Each structure stands twice: as C-alpha cells, then as structure tokens.
C-alpha cells in the first residue's frame, strides 16, 4: 500500500468534512478497498473510516414498514437482524465468508457497485432508496454502470431503505474460486408488479430484466418466462463463462428465484 493518513470520525458531519480534503477516500468495511490498496490500484491521501459512526449502524423498521439499514451496517448484522425482509437477510448471509461478512458493509458494497456484487441486485430489485448525507436516490437512478453510481465526490451512503415485497428470492450461481456471483438474480413481487434485477452478468453492471418483469407481473411462475430468451450482447465473457453461458444462467436463476420465492 502507498502511505496515507487515516481518520476515524464519529459523526457523519465530521466524516463529510474529512472527505472534503483533497484525494480523501471513504472506507467502509474495507473488504474490497483494502485489497485494492494493497495492489496499489488506489492512492488516497487520506482514508476516512466510516466504521466509527454509531448513527450509521443498525437495522430498523420505517414508518411505512420498510427495512432501514444504516450505511455502515455489516452483512452479518443484516443477516441476523433484517428478518422482516427474509430474502434480503438470506442474501446478506451468503456474501463472501463469515469473516468478510463481519467487516463488509452495505454502504461500501453499494458505493463500489462491483458488477458481481450481491447487494446491488437486492437494492435494484427492491427499488430501495439510497440515502446519503445530501439526498435520497432511487435505486433506479443510482446504478449507472460497472463501478459507477450517482454518488458525487465525498458523498456518503448513510442509510438504505428497502420496501418489503410480498415475495422475494435471490439466487446466486457462484464463481467457484472467488464465490462472487457469476450470475445472481433477485426477484421481488410487489403489489404493483414484479422486479427482476441481475448481477454478475452484464458489462454495464447490475440491471433489470424488463421482459421477465412483464411476464412475471402477469403470471408469477417459472413457466411465465419459459418462452423468453436473454441476448448475450453486452454480457461478460471470461474464463469462468462465456456471454452465452451467462445469458442462459440469467434465465435459469430467474426461474429458480421465482420458484423459491416465499
């Protein structure tokens, strides 16, 4: 790692101030950022830890029944405490490994927007609201391509609010070495329609599969998507799977998620 200054503020206001300095970078749980720093792929002057901010930690239920999760809440805490939204808790319980889940945070995952990460699928599949120190951002507006989000310089995700669907499920086909999603599909059935969010597959990062959403909104069964096909254009191809393979997996995992939805 290149040398950097380290700050650990205890309030959001102090973190915002610290991030205003030149080449400052926010640190969530560090489970992606620290390995990135070790590779010397990033060189911040100052690293501002969000881990000491108590007001950004924890899970609660909002006024409209939505599950509200502080931006610095670990995956393990979401897995243990977000039982009001079982599909979300289950997703959090299968990110990385136990030690990673004890450090990694929802805000860090969403800010990074890794194209193979799990949380972006849950946030987009639920049209969660990403709350920052400046504004509220709908998930539909938040994800803007691989490793790209609507966040501005120095903007911090303080909370994420998930409306709880009638039924939902997340199915992940793990890349066997990294255990990241080779393809992951989050399906959520709300009273006003079904949302299907796909991670791991596209060079544009997490995205919705609108044809499946239409079909499933009319008939919420795996059969409803049997006639659909996913074009391989723009999907990721690497040694773990071709674009055609990932396209096939998107459909298979969507079907499994619908069948498993509860």
């Amino acid at each position: 790692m290149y040398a950097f200054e380290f700050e650990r503020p205890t309030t959001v206001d102090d973190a915002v101030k610290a991030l205003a300095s030149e080449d400052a970078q926010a640190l969530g749980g560090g489970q992606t950022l620290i390995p990135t720093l070790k590779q010397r792929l990033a060189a911040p002057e100052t690293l501002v830890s969000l881990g000491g901010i108590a007001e950004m930690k924890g899970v609660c239920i909002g006024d409209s029944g939505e599950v509200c999760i502080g931006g610095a809440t670990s995956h393990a805490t979401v897995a243990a405490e977000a039982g009001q939204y079982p599909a979300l808790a289950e997703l959090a319980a299968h990110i990385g490994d136990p030690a990673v889940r004890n450090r990694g945070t929802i805000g860090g995952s969403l800010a990074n927007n890794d194209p193979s990460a799990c949380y972006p699928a849950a946030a987009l599949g639920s049209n969660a609201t990403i709350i920052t120190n400046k504004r509220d951002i709908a998930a539909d507006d938040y994800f803007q391509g691989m490793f790209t989000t609507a966040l501005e310089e120095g903007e911090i995700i303080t909370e994420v609010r998930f409306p709880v669907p009638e039924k939902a499920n997340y199915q992940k086909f793990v890349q066997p070495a990294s255990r990241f999603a080779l393809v992951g599909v989050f399906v959520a059935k709300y009273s006003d329609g079904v949302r299907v969010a796909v991670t791991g597959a596209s060079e544009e990062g997490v995205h919705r599969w609108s044809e499946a959403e239409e079909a499933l909104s009319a008939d919420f069964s795996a059969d409803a998507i049997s006639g659909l096909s996913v074009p391989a254009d723009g999907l990721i191809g690497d040694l773990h799977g071709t674009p055609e393979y990932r396209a096939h997996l998107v459909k298979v995992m969507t079907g499994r998620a619908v069948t498993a939805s509860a």
Partner: protein
Amino acid sequence: MTQVSMTVNGKAVSGEVEGRTLLSGFLRDSLNLTGTHVGCDTSQCGACVVHVDGVAVKACAMLAGEAEGAEVTTIEGMAKPDGSLSTIQQAFQDHHGLQCGFCTPGMVMSAAALLQDNPNPSETEIREYLEGNICRCTGYHNIVKAIMAAAGQDVSKIAAE
C-alpha cells in the same frame, strides 16, 4: 504515525502505527504475536483470522487504526489460563486437525467463532462456515472432525478419508 490502543488477549496494549498498518502487521510486528499468520495477504485464505469485539475478522483486511479501543483475541489468547490447550485446540491435536499447521491459527479462531454462535453445528454447517479458511494441505476432513469433537459430538464413526 498515530497512536493506537486496544486490548489484546486481555492486556491493554498501544503502539505507534502508520495509517496503512494492518491489524495483522500490528499484532505480528509491534506486539510480536506471530501466531496470527499471513498466508495470502489478499483476504482469501483466512490464516490471519482473529476476533475483534467477539467476531471473526481477517486481520490482513483491517487497518490497525480500525481496532482502536477494540477487544482483540488472537490464537495466543486461546489457551486456558493454566497454559493447557483449549477444548478446540486439544480437539485439533487429538483428531489430527493439522498437517503443516500454517492455516491452524485461523482455523481455530474461525472454529471458536462458529461454536460461540452455534454450539452444536452439523458437518455441513462447519464446512460452510470454513468457506473463508483455506488449508493448503487439504486436511479439511480432520479439521471438520476436530470441530465436531470440540462441540461434544461423537466422531468415532467418522472414518478418516
């Protein structure tokens, strides 16, 4: 350089660290607690697992500054007060849960974290929990067996494979 203070294996410790100093580096280089092994340094192998405020973390993927004020337990803190091996450590010895021993500190710390949350895990649950701990000797069978034994389960019927 900044000052960090924490409790490691029940003792208050402090030291000067750089911003980029990892918890694994602080434990090994400043405190000479070299039982915490750094295997891959890419947070995949789990040899560096320690407990921070009661939960398992990879010490090579956490900055020392993040542990300010925390209660840290390393493999050196696992033995009983009289110096004899803890139940988990003894089970690893009894069931040949180690070969070269490099991954063992992380395996023991992960096992302890698992048994704290789930005192009577199934074989499947143990294998799932150890997903982030790699044994390059591929001695998983006896590691899992040792953890089952440490949980008080009868492992006499489990054949060595």
